[in-house]
């Protein structure tokens, strides 16, 4: 329950990747898509952090588990800031590729899965965080794939 909020990450990103039906989709700007992804990611991570801190305050998550999850999200927050800096520098570059620019962010999330999630001792929490981050990567890649060569 306490970590089900993590699913908001994937839901938010999925919703931003679906074009409205019945209308001609507007031209896609890869940098704009990248900015949308990092914005949704920032808000999704906030929900995750609020959820685990609330669980910790209510004695539903230990300090050690909470610290492990927060260290994982700190890594993603910093990667998000880095991704924003790269996107900002390429905002007026018509040839910029969102896939290339967001590759380090995706790699950071993947690294968090490989290196940090394993440190979560509680199996349920570990599985929830791992599957949510994996879904996050799949969703980001799905949005980027929708851009074609972008």
């Amino acid at each position, binding site marked *: 329950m306490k970590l089900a909020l993590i699913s908001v990450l994937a839901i938010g990103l999925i919703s931003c990747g679906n074009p409205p039906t019945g209308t001609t989709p507007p031209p896609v*700007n890869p*940098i*704009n898509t990248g*900015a*949308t992804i*990092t*914005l949704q*990611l*920032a*808000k999704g*991570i*906030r929900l995750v*952090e609020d959820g685990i*801190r609330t669980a910790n305050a209510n004695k539903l998550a230990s*300090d050690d588990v*909470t*610290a492990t999850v*927060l*260290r994982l*999200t*700190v890594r993603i*927050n*910093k990667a*998000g*800031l880095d991704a*924003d800096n790269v*996107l*900002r520098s390429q*905002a*007026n570059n018509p040839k910029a590729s969102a896939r290339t620019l967001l590759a380090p962010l995706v790699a950071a999330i993947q690294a968090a899965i490989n290196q940090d999630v394993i440190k979560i001792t509680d199996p349920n929490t570990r599985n929830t965080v791992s599957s949510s981050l994996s879904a996050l990567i799949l969703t980001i890649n799905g949005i980027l794939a929708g851009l074609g060569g972008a």
Partner: protein
Amino acid sequence: MTTAEGITLGLNLAAQYGPAIITFIKQIKQKDGSVVTSVTILAKLDEADADFNDNLKADADWFAKHGMTADGTPVKPPT
């Protein structure tokens, strides 16, 4: 000047300056469009940055409150 002469003059002017005028209008549209797009993108990036920084601040506050650090290093005792 007759109506026919006026039309001819107008056509000649359009032929002479039309492409330049059309190009000028396109440039304005392109420039305006690109500026609007950039502002939108930068606003999103600014908001995302603010959210990421807020998250990191809240994380740092939690770690400090619990006598820990975000990178796992030992907390230095106050001097």
